[in-house]
């Protein structure tokens, strides 16, 4: 059965692993150089690195490939696994040999599914290893060019560590289950592609922030740590709706930030006078009541306004990684269970 599984699967296997192998070779060749530069340039590392075109490309390609692997694997390894048999009627050939459907499915899922996880795992490992000096430098506060996203932030988090393995397992199991229900290869491929991409996009927004209770911090906005100032309404009668402060430290992932008043109530609108603290309007007309930043934020602090910030600190990286991967592995297990249940029922 393992022979048959491999015989039917080798073409798709070859295509995906070839793409990953090419990248892996590039990463293996350039990786030691990146690590050397990290040691040599220390604080100027990222500035130096952003001048090397190849490494910039590799950084992006690696990122893209790790995100692309789960949908591609789900759509092209998972979806056709049963759907193609049902479509061509060959399930009636293979299920009437001397082995049971369950055993047939066990072999299919084990070979292809574990293959999917292994390939994605190796890809993620290679990318995580190669980008480690970069992530480290960003975590220490360096930024330059494209190298400015901490590994805690959604664009990078999902392309590091064990999360891609969880995505791959989930995508594969989803593809198989969709194929089993849809019974049409092309339909199953389309649904799986769309669903897995949607999951990759939505998971950082809807799932990841809740994997652990965020840390809360209360910060007083000062002229130095002010990072955002949002006005709405007509130019001459604008309202301040939001200000943002910078948190001490680097590499954390901010989930939310609210301004609360002295009573601790969340404010949707800030005092009217604060309008004059913002940057001057583009027409250059400076209003008579204009105050300096220092005075402004001192008054805000005196009146008891504080910023309430929820965030995941940088040292939670692996905790969040394992939790997210675990959840997707559980989902994959559930989908696999569904496949075993469904395949034992009537399918002609």
């Amino acid at each position, binding site marked *: *059965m393992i*022979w*048959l599984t491999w*015989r*039917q699967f080798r073409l798709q296997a070859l295509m995906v692993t070839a793409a990953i192998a090419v990248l892996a070779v590039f990463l293996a060749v350039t990786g030691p150089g990146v690590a050397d530069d990290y040691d040599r340039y220390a604080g100027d590392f990222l500035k130096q690195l952003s001048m090397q075109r190849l490494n910039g490309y590799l950084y992006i390609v690696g990122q893209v490939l790790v995100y692309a692997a789960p949908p591609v694997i789900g759509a092209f390894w998972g979806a056709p696994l049963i759907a193609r048999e049902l479509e*061509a*009627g*060959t399930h*009636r*050939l*293979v*299920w*009437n*040999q*001397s*082995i*049971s459907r369950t055993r047939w499915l066990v072999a299919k899922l084990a070979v292809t599914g574990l293959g999917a996880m292994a390939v994605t795992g190796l890809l993620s490992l290679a990318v995580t290893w190669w980008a480690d000096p970069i992530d480290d430098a960003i975590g220490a506060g360096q930024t330059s060019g494209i190298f400015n996203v901490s590994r805690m932030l959604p664009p990078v988090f999902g392309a590091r560590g064990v999360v891609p393995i969880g995505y791959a397992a989930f995508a594969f199991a989803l593809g198989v289950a969709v194929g089993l229900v849809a019974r049409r290869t092309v339909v199953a491929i389309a649904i799986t592609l769309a669903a897995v991409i949607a999951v990759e996009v939505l998971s950082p927004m809807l799932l990841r922030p809740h994997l652990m209770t965020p840390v809360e911090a209360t910060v007083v906005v000062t002229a130095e740590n002010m990072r955002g100032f949002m006005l709405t309404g007509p130019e001459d009668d604008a309202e301040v709706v939001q200000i943002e402060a910078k948190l001490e430290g680097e590499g954390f992932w901010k989930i939310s930030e609210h301004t609360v008043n002295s009573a601790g109530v969340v404010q949707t609108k800030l005092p009217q006078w604060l309008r004059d603290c913002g940057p001057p309007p583009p027409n250059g007309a400076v209003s008579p009541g204009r105050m300096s930043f220092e005075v402004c934020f001192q008054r805000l602090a005196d009146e008891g306004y504080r910023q309430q910030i929820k965030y995941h600190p940088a040292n939670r990286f692996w905790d969040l990684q394992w939790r997210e991967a675990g959840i997707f592995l559980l989902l994959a297990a559930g989908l696999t269970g569904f496949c075993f249940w469904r395949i034992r*029922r*009537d*399918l*002609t």
Partner: protein
Amino acid sequence: MTTALKAQGLGKKYGRRWALTDCTLDVPAGRVVGLVGPNGAGKSTLLNLAVGMLTPTAGQIEVLGNPAGTSQRTKIGFVAQDTPTYARLSIADHLKLGARLNPRWDDSLAQARIQQLGLDPKQRAGKLSGGQRAQLALTLGVAKRPELLILDEPVAALDPLARREFLQDLMAAVTEQELSVILSSHLVSDVERSCDYLVVLVDSRVQVSGDIDTLLATHYRLVGPRRDEKSMPQNQYVVSASHTDRQSTYLIRTDEPVLDPAWAVSQLTLEDIVLAYMGRSTSAPQNNRPLLEVQR
């Protein structure tokens, strides 16, 4: 073990539609059984229930003396409708598949059959003609060394020549291996050529079943002056009757010779018999299924 297939009140429902209802039949082992019926009679459903591809909604089905679908896979060979094969795999790959998935696989038999058919083992199944594909599927079924080989409309898609070759081949394999065969078809001629036992299934009901030679020897057409059905002798079972003003035509089954000199007695072909039994059913109310197709 004397029955190949036995069904009792067997029924199968797809969603709200019953594909097979209250089917009761008993097919002996050691025979080549032709299962004939119009499209939609439930032949495929019955055979799929027999090999365990489907589970019954009602009733029981036994294959080789055991409930269908329970770990009898080694003993039953199945050539599914349209004889599916893996288009991208070669003939040699298919034989390897058979060898790996079947403990009783007879590789020399499989190789010999492929050679005999003049097929190139390296050729992909997708490039084979319909007849060759059917032969490949049959090879897989036979080399598995089953006790019972079930074929679901194996020749439906083949041209007359390929059809004859396939059935001849099947017969050769059957005589060599002494296996029981159940073969479904909507064509009487296929069955006449290859089977020695007939089951006619219409609307999931068995209209007639029996040894083909016996069926041929006990059915007659009687043509004579008009006569009422009630006045027919007890030992003559009327299958069908048609009347004109002065003349009656009866199709009867009887174990005794017809001695009444009023009748002009003639023998029937198997097709006549089958059509007569089917005609009976189609005259029943709420039945608008197509009649048995007659081969051109």
